[in-house]
């Protein structure tokens, strides 16, 4: 089963929740950081990295000797990665989304596949769990292509359950991270910012038709409107984690809450059980095999 830990707003404790779940999880597990712009999970799980590979996006490479300057590729490209200027066809690989259209179009064989480095994919182990993360190159503007490659790696050799630390927000990268999950866990906090962004996330992720539950982090601060909203919208609250300065300080030292603060361990075990319950309820057949 794939569980995506997401949040409409950044800084609600998504990584804390993912790291703590990974710490208490029983059975084979892969912990994945798909927040490739700002990957942080490794800071808490302290994985031993055994492989680090660059990831590339297919971009066109020009053989100017074969180019007849017809301009078809430049006219086709939606991203301005090709431009016909005077008697020169210019290629801007950093603009390319890797659709392959120009290469397929060119009748002269003047464009061939090359690569733009998107960032790195790191693999290793954190305790008993397998660990996988993507890290976007600074200056690289697109995160979905790297996320797709991390996910492809995940599919290639997945064993047991998967916990995905997703990018925050509700735009393209966030949806990209959760769309292949079986269950979505939305982490929020009981404040007006938390509520507002949580509503957007529920609106964005609900149409995916996957079981979705809330974790209310730092319960006790702010007000009770997130709980009210969950009740009205029919979103189950799978955990309420009380605000504690001890947890905040443990986090600041890079410690995992479920390990550093004894009473948190039980809360995360209960959360794990609820997540598994939701997965089983939505997919009884697969649960039987597990």
């Amino acid at each position, binding site marked *: 089963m794939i569980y995506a830990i997401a949040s409409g707003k950044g800084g609600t404790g998504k990584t804390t929740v993912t790291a703590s779940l990974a710490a208490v999880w029983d059975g084979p597990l892969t912990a994945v950081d798909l927040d490739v712009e700002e990957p942080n999970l490794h800071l808490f799980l302290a994985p031993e990295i055994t492989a680090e590979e660059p990831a590339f996006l297919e971009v066109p490479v020009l053989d100017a000797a074969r180019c007849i300057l017809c301009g078809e590729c430049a006219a086709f490209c939606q*991203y*301005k*990665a090709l*431009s016909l*200027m*005077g008697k*020169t066809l*210019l290629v*801007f690989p*950093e*603009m390319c989304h890797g659709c392959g259209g120009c290469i397929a179009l060119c009748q002269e064989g003047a464009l061939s596949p090359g690569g733009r480095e998107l960032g790195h994919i790191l693999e290793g182990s954190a305790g008993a769990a397998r660990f996988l993360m993507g890290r976007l190159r600074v200056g690289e*503007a697109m995160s979905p292509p790297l996320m797709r490659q991390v996910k492809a790696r995940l599919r290639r050799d997945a064993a047991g359950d998967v916990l995905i630390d997703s990018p925050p927000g509700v735009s393209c990268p966030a949806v990209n991270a959760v769309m292949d999950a079986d269950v979505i866990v939305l982490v929020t906090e009981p404040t007006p910012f938390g509520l507002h962004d949580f509503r957007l996330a529920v609106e964005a992720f609900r149409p995916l038709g996957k079981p979705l539950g809330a974790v209310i982090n730092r319960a006790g601060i702010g007000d009770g409107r997130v709980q009210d909203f969950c009740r009205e919208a029919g979103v189950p609250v799978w955990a309420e984690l009380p605000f504690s300065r001890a947890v905040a300080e443990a986090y600041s030292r890079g410690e995992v809450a479920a390990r550093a603060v004894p009473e948190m361990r039980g809360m995360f075990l209960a959360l794990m059980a609820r997540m598994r319950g939701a997965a089983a309820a939505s997919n009884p057949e697969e649960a039987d095999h597990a």
Partner: protein
Amino acid sequence: MNAGIIAVTSEGPGMESMVDSRFGRAAGFVVVDLATEQTSYVDNGGSQSMAQGAGIQAAENVARAGAGVVLSGFVGPKAFQALSAAGIQVVQNVENMTVGQAVDKYKRGELSTSDAPNAPAGGNKG
């Protein structure tokens, strides 16, 4: 390319309009034929609405207008490369003056062309 035709990034359509310091997301270009003193205006709105590649699109617009020289504030690396490929000369750091003043300065030889961009990539996004 005709070095006697210059394109100035502009906030409006005439010689009295202010120079737009941006290249890719300039409102438009006032195109001046130095020989005939005739001017025309090229709207750059299409480039402004692009998700990406505004600088490259703007360079294509300038080339299509037949200009051999561009006067602007900041030109990024991709736009610079595109303009250079078309043989268009670039004069940068032109700002805080009207299009007419910029053209006069150019005619008096007070503006020199650049051989490198003076703005970072992606500046057109702003």
